[in-house]
């Protein structure tokens, strides 16, 4: 059982502004597991504690209660090598392009593996591989990261985390502020990553469409607590409850529900466009 759990979050509690009259309990008894190779979606309204949670996964924040186990070891133990952990749990912050600082894209991507104390050959190899992985061209290598477009900058930032070759990749709202095309490209790149590298991915998002389409499991957060932790189909069956906390089910789910109440015999658990299409065609076929 244990080897099947890569990372265990065990009753995490975290508060901001401790010792003042504005204490915010951002995490309130949060427990869940990340399995190897799993694609996990983390959704919740703004302020529900998603970003706070993901900063615990690589030990950037120390919880006020509870702990995290990685490969069976308590990462907040005194002697635990948290710097090494950050290479294994790669965290891409929201708007990661704001953290770029190097003169060239290549140097920027080398920053992560360099910090891990690898030898220069290995660092450069990883950097080339990561840059190719995120779909940036060779010409970019010697350009200044500040001369790139917004979407490209974000790819550079993601590549710089990928170059550390993490076992779990955590992306905090990676599609925020991108146009629809950039968004789709980025998401299919992430999907690709998981298929070719076999790493676990945690995708933080507040767009149901993003999540429904790709992930194996969804964790829904509200006010620092986990509300649901289940497959997309099960979670999105709770459309009413999701709406109550400022979320929603994917749009196609609503369409299916409307069709159903209008008398068309469709399966309302469909959450992706393809599923909706199939069930509608099927229903029409039966009728006609």
């Amino acid at each position, binding site marked *: 059982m244990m080897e099947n759990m890569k990372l265990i979050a065990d009753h995490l509690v975290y508060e901001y502004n401790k*010792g*003042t*009259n*504005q204490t915010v309990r951002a995490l309130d008894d949060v427990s869940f597991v990340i399995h190897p190779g799993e694609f996990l979606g983390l959704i919740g309204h703004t302020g529900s504690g998603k970003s706070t949670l993901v*900063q615990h996964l*690589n030990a*950037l924040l120390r919880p006020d209660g509870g702990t995290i186990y990685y490969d069976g070891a308590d990462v907040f133990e005194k002697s635990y090598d948290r*710097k090494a952990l*950050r*290479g294994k749990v*790669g*965290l*891409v*912050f929201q708007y*990661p392009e*704001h*953290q*770029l*600082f190097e003169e060239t894209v290549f140097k920027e991507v080398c*920053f*992560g*593996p*360099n*910090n*891990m104390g690898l030898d220069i050959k290995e660092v450069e190899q990883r950097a080339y591989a990561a840059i190719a992985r995120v779909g940036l061209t060779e010409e970019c290598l010697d350009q200044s990261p*500040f001369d790139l477009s917004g979407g490209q900058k974000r790819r550079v930032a993601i590549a*710089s*985390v990928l170059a*550390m070759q993490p076992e779990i990749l955590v992306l905090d709202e990676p599609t925020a502020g991108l146009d629809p095309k950039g968004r789709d490209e980025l998401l299919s790149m992430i999907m690709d990553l998981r298929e070719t590298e076999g790493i676990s991915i945690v995708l933080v998002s507040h767009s149901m469409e993003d999540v429904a389409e790709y992930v194996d499991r969804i964790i829904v957060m509200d006010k620092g607590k986990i509300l649901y932790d289940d497959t997309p189909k099960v979670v999105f069956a709770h459309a009413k409850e999701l709406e109550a906390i400022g979320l929603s089910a994917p749009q196609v789910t609503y369409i299916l529900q409307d069709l159903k109440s209008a008398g068309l015999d469709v399966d309302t658990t469909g959450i992706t466009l393809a599923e909706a299409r199939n069930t509608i065609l099927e229903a029409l076929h039966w009728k006609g």
Partner: protein
Amino acid sequence: MLRDITIGQYYSADSVLHRLDPRTKLVGTLIYLVSLFLFATPLVYVPATLFLMIVIFSSKVPFGYMVKGLKPVLFLLLFTVLMNMIFVKGEVIATIWKIEITKEGLKQSLLMGARLILLILGSNVMTLTTTPTRLTNAMESVMRPLKLIRVPVHEIAMMMSIALRFIPILLDETDKIMKAQMARGADFESGNLVKKAKSLIPVLVPLFISAFRRANDLAMAMEARCYHGGEGRTQMKPLRYTGRDYAAYMILLLYLAGVIVTGKYSTEVLDWIGVR
């Protein structure tokens, strides 16, 4: 980490002190600071400390939170105290490794330490209980006479309020960038001084870029709302004194009188305590 820096940051609460007119607090703080320098006798620190304690208590800002604000200046504080202890000449009471500690030096350094702590806490009370906007409004209003000699009072106040507003924002930003670089394996703690200084580059570059971006956005937003300086500009909430403020001024005067009496007649006061 950086969040521990509470100097200059507003602490929102609902207290008498929060509701005072910012001008009262500004003038009050100035009077308090001056009162610390009026006399050299240690006795004046009794009313000064008492007064500050009462003010802090009525501000509803937790004392621990306020003391946390002393942390960044701890080095300066220790430095001043040590310098005074070592370099003031007089009657030697102890010698540690060729350094002579004198009675006068000890007395002087303790006095300096107490003065600095009261000074910092005193001004901290003002910034903790007054929003930057109200504080700069007060400054603008108090400095208004300087307009006669062509000092650009409004512009100075506006710059101050923007600077004050940016402090917490930039601290937040620094925190975020440091975390992002730590997520990429950066290490800000270990290594020698040169290595530590070097490790700051990945923080400073994005920080400067972000500061410029924010400044640019702000300038654009101000222009979009037709900001054109102080000429003919009115305020949405003009400052107005109320009964509370007059009471505060009375208390201030009483305090000042207390300090002057203890300072002027310090020997008599000591005698009196001694006689009792």
